[in-house]
């Protein structure tokens, strides 16, 4: 469904991604693991073309999307949930959802506000509140809900568990599994291996912008030395 081949990215002269190549299969949940600064967010942004890769290509459903404008990538069916939440704090919950709204897409769930409120009951009570009045956990839910309004086929979740109370993180994990059941494909970046283990089918590990491992969870368990070297739990 999504394929990166030899993706390289730079900030100025600094080489932040080095020949990344991996695939995300349809309907799978893939976890991108690595330390902070390993290049996880840059990978996400390179897929969205918010950072333009220099060299290599990103293809989505067989189409080369390298060099597209981010809004075009989003329209093609990729939904991006950024790390720092970035909700529109001056807008209400409903208005935030409106920003994310896109026309229905063939073969994907068409989300309505009510379906999302079912998925995130906390948001339902807050629909008229401004974004800034929400707690950190509610903001995280709103970012996901906002992206789902675009009826994406593939969701990029950047560090969904960061800075959130354990109980809410568990709720997040249930939501991801539910999305998978609905047929969505998910690529999430994580530092928390526990969380990744709970939701992911396979993992990609990167370190200093270089890919160190790609395979199933079971394969990773079989190679504890890799896990210890790059994840160190």
């Amino acid at each position: 469904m999504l394929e990166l081949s030899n993706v390289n990215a730079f900030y100025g002269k600094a080489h932040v991604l080095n020949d990344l190549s991996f695939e995300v299969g349809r309907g799978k949940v893939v976890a991108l693991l690595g330390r902070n600064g390993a290049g996880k967010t840059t990978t996400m942004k390179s897929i969205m073309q918010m950072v333009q890769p220099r060299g290599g290509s990103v293809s989505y459903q067989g189409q080369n999307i390298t060099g597209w404008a981010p809004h075009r990538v989003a329209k093609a069916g990729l939904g991006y949930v950024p790390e720092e939440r970035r909700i529109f704090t001056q807008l209400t919950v409903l208005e935030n959802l409106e920003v994310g709204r896109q026309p229905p897409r063939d073969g994907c769930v068409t989300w309505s506000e009510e379906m999302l409120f079912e998925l995130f009951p906390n948001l339902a009570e807050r629909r008229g509140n401004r974004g800034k009045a929400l707690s950190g956990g509610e903001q995280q839910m709103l970012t996901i809900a906002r992206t789902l309004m675009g009826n994406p086929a593939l969701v990029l979740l950047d560090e969904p568990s960061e800075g959130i109370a354990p109980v809410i993180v568990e709720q997040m994990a249930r939501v991801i599994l539910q999305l998978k059941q609905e047929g969505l494909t998910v690529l999430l970046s994580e530092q928390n291996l526990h969380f990744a283990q709970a939701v992911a089918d396979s993992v990609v590990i990167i370190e200093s912008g270089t890919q160190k491992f790609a395979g199933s969870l079971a394969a990773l368990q079989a190679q504890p030395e890799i896990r210890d070297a790059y994840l160190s739990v």
Partner: protein
Amino acid sequence: MGLFLAQLLTGLANAGALFMVASGLSLIFGVTRIVNFAHGSFYMLGAYVGYTLMQVLPGMVGFWGAILLAGIIVGLIGVIVEICVLRPVYSAPELFQLVATFGVILVIQDLTLMIWGAEDLLGPRAPGLKGVVRILDEPVPQYDLALIAITPFVAFALWYLISKTRVGILVRAATQDREMVGALGVNQSWLFTGVFFLGCALAGLGGAVQLPKGGADLLMDFNILTSVFVVVVIGGMGSLPGAYLAAVIISVLNVFGVSYMPQSTLVLMFVVMVVVLIFRPFGLFGKEEVAGEHGQVGEPERPIKPAGLRVRMLVLAGLVLLGLIPVLGSNFAEVLATDILIFCLFAASLHFMLGQGGLVSFGHAAFFGGGAYVAALLVTYADTPMELAMVLAPLGAGLAAVVIGWVCLRSTGVYFAMLTLAFAQLLWSLVFQWGDITGGDDGLVNIWPSAWASSNTVFFYLALVICVGGILLLRHAAHSPFGYALRAARDSARQAEAMGIHTKRIQWVAFAFAGAMAGIAGGLFVFSKGSVFPNELEIARSFDALIVVFLGGVKTLSGGWVGGASFEAVKDYLTRFEYWRLALGLLIIGVVILAPEGIVGSLRKLGERIGFLNAAEDKR
């Protein structure tokens, strides 16, 4: 009572055009974060285009059609400007774009002059609304009543568009985080262009709609700009109801001012603004501005270090060359070099405050002109010798900066910038309208240097020593603990406060220091010219300094004086031609697009590439 009501109605009618222009400016700023200096120019274009259309289209339908068409045409011109001038520089550091819009002002000024000529145009009266209505025996023009009726509809339509429609939601979302809006599938380039169209169209509409009351002339752009800034700031950036209310307050106040306090009409507006901002630092309906953390890119500023030996030798060589001007050059060269030196010190003082302190002032001329007037007044009324006057000039300017800084620093960001502009205008209007003391428009003349310094050559050396000394002092201050603390307050006020630094106070001291340094330049200026006029306090003077700081490079230590020297030299050359504004405007736009890090920033890059300077550390 009747007169009172009639005046109130006139004020309300005047508020219409002002509101339209102000809401356009506010809208553009909200979404693009660009302070559009050229907004007054679009207003002016609206008037000229509307005038021409009214000559062609007949009757009542033609009149109103011309107004609408003028709005659309100006909106389209705005689109051209946005696509050609602003799109290439959206990724430049914050506020850099305003330099480009300044270039646009100059270009539009000369193009208007070319097309419509220098003569003022008298606007036609509205067909069918030429008469007056008697209200309590006072004549009120019918057209005024029409304007009073129309404005709320425009305001309501705008409010509805922004608060209730999907487009409005997208616009508000983009105001906060445009990159994210893009990542959610919205084509933000077109959203920007659309907002620019709407904002400029509103300005054009404002220009056309006031034709029957005011006509069209070439000074309209700057004249409206100050009022519009004041309206937007009083109402609160981004607030439509605020803009409407403020437009009404200012317009009504102006009408009453003309009748009851003709000596202080210009001052009044700024006094109101200062009072409002003292109680509500973000305007009547404004919210505290959250610095845009997203969507602003550009390289992080580098650590500073004292110049290396090579650069010092280069500077020394340059100074020796400068010192040889009287020997090698003409009398004219001496005078020109003196002018440039003084301007460089002025620019460097602003650069210190802006670059190191992050304090963007739109009114730094207050202290340059202030210093000049302090010296001139002392000479005129107290026969003060030049030496003493030149010492008291920076003291006076510094003192003014202490007071003005205290008020302005209650706000931050664009509000701070607007407040400084307001105070500069306040000083300007004081000087302009208080003719008995300041000579008003005629200025103060016959202020000559002491006998020993009266030759051009001696005065040149005096200026050289003072200005170079001042610039070096500013530069050293940047390397001192004071400069570091100032930078700390700018980089992270949160951390600075948590390490015992009183950030507001350090900024206050920096403001006063920069003001005093500008005062030195002002004092020198008076004695070099022998006279001073109110235009040394003018908004255009402040903008000159601001533009050169950006052109020179904010994120460098030498941007101020390098920009100042280049700008003055180029301007001196270009003003020999008829359409010099056009050329200068295009040149500024060119520099903005080609060298977004300013002259020094780009030269530094070049120097590193050819190995003259040590390269900066690579980012990870």
